[in-house]
């Protein structure tokens, strides 16, 4: 029993992408509904066909969306735990629901509006309230958890702080340089320049990169994702049913999520990962299972859509997914390997989170589908297989291989 090629992504829908807060007066709910209806329409399906929600990071409340949109009957509603690490894996959740006969048409989505709530926000102030609710938590006793005092004193409470720690260790072990991080940011910006949906379309030079505000050394402004709003949805159904729909099917060749148990929550509050994979994206066990399921290896991948909340994690994923040996990701990107034109493995041809928009991984799924349909803005000639990843964050992280 395997998920290989038994299901397909058949529809993609999205709102425009907005700078943080500019999606008002829409709401996260209204944008979710808009993306779902657009994805169903793209597939040639309607809301009457939808019966499953296979999401991640609790991106929406299926009860609310189903009632608002009038879904006739929900037969499957589940979310991968943790956060953006599950983005690619949510396609595998859909495949699992469909191949086990529990649902026929599933949607995964992310909807995000950072007007009032900022994902990169910190737990500063409020007497530790941000560490666990403080005295204002609506849950339970409202107490600060006992682990908070072990963490809070360091003042490292924003995502960039955490990823700076992984990056510094990677630099120490392998000689990774800021120039390597810059190549990730600059190559993705080059891709975004040609893409109308991208929010950052001005060229980025090496000088601008090095003159940018240093935030959490060694990470500067351009190593960080943007803060954006918007929603993207993807519809999955069986390979059989996919044959009769509007677009050629994009088959789910394999999907895996999880991670080593001791990877744990990995960042923010933990940092107890064993030495041999501390300075990684946590995706090595995912890559192994994913390639085995799909019967493929890194040499079969034509385009890689790697979750890029921070530029160095692209480098670590290139290593974890076997595009280069562990420790050589920096020189691998410096040699031009991830460029759309001339690269051995074009990466984030849509501009990624760094330059197109940050919808917590869903834009990567959208780009993979466009590449495999052959209508991407930065089309990789003859692309047949795309890798999409989620995370790196706390367990589970995830990866999915799509093929046309």
């Amino acid at each position: 029993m395997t998920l290989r090629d038994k299901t397909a992504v058949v529809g993609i829908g999205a709102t425009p992408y907005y700078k943080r807060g500019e999606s008002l007066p829409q709401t996260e709910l209204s944008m979710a509904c808009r993306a779902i209806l657009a994805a169903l329409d793209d597939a040639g399906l309607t809301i009457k066909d939808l019966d499953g929600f296979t999401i991640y990071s609790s991106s929406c409340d299926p009860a609310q969306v189903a009632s608002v949109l009038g879904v006739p009957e929900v037969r499957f509603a589940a979310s991968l735990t943790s956060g953006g690490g599950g983005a690619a894996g949510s396609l595998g959740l859909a495949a699992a629901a469909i191949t086990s006969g529990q649902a026929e048409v599933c949607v995964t989505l992310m909807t995000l509006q950072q007007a009032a709530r900022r994902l990169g926000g910190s737990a500063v102030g409020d007497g530790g309230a941000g560490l666990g609710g403080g005295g204002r938590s609506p849950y339970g006793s409202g107490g600060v958890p006992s682990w908070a005092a072990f963490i809070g004193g360091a003042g490292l409470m924003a995502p960039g702080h955490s990823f700076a720690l992984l990056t510094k260790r990677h630099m120490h072990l392998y000689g990774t340089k800021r120039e390597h991080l810059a190549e990730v940011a600059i190559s993705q910006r080059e891709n975004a320049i040609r893409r109308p949906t991208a929010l950052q379309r001005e060229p980025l030079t090496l000088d601008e990169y090095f003159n940018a505000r240093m935030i959490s050394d060694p990470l500067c402004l351009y190593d960080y994702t943007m803060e954006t709003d918007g929603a993207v949805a993807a519809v999955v159904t069986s390979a059989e049913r996919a044959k009769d729909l509007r677009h050629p099917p994009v088959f789910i060749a394999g999907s895996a999520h999880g991670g080593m148990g001791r990877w744990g929550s990995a960042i923010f509050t933990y940092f107890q990962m064993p030495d041999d994979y501390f300075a990684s994206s946590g995706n090595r066990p995912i890559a192994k299972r994913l390639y085995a399921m799909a019967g493929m290896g890194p040499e079969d991948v034509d385009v890689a859509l790697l979750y890029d909340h921070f530029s160095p994690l692209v480098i670590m994923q290139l290593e974890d997914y076997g595009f280069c040996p562990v420790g050589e990701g920096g020189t691998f990107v410096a040699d031009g390997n991830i460029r759309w034109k001339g690269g051995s493995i074009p990466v984030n041809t849509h501009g990624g989170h760094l330059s197109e928009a940050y919808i917590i991984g869903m834009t990567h799924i959208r780009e993979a589908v466009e590449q495999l349909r052959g209508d991407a803005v930065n089309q990789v000639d003859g692309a047949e297989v795309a890798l999409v990843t989620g995370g790196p964050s706390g367990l589970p992280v995830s990866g999915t291989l799509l093929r046309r």
Partner: protein
Amino acid sequence: MTALKQGTYPAMMQDPYADATTQPFWDAALQGRLVAPRCRSCGTYVLPPQPYCFTCQGTDFEWTDLPGTGTIYTFTVVRHPLSKALAAVVPYVSGVIELDGTQGAGARMLLNITGFDPETVQIGDRVEIWFDKISDTFALPRARPAQA
């Protein structure tokens, strides 16, 4: 809050909000001692304290004094303050410390690292843990350059 000082991240809590699993750590901290729970079955150190040993799943721990020294495993220099109120604190150095006497992973601490030049601090630098008394119930551990 006492006056802000560049390099020293101000304590955001006045109490460790300890429970039975963590109280011995904070009791020792008030005395200036670094202690950690060590699994009586297999010897694994677990910090922050947890209800189970991740090596053998034991639940019986012995609180053990550590040398109070260690090594910088990784760090970041925070140069952009999280809020305007912290403008006087940046740049500050914080990171992961591997504690002498433990097995490393599983007993690392995430600490503010004071007393180093942010431009020259390196992974592998030796540190000692010191305790910054915040209140009658809370002494916050920080790291600083080890005395030769």
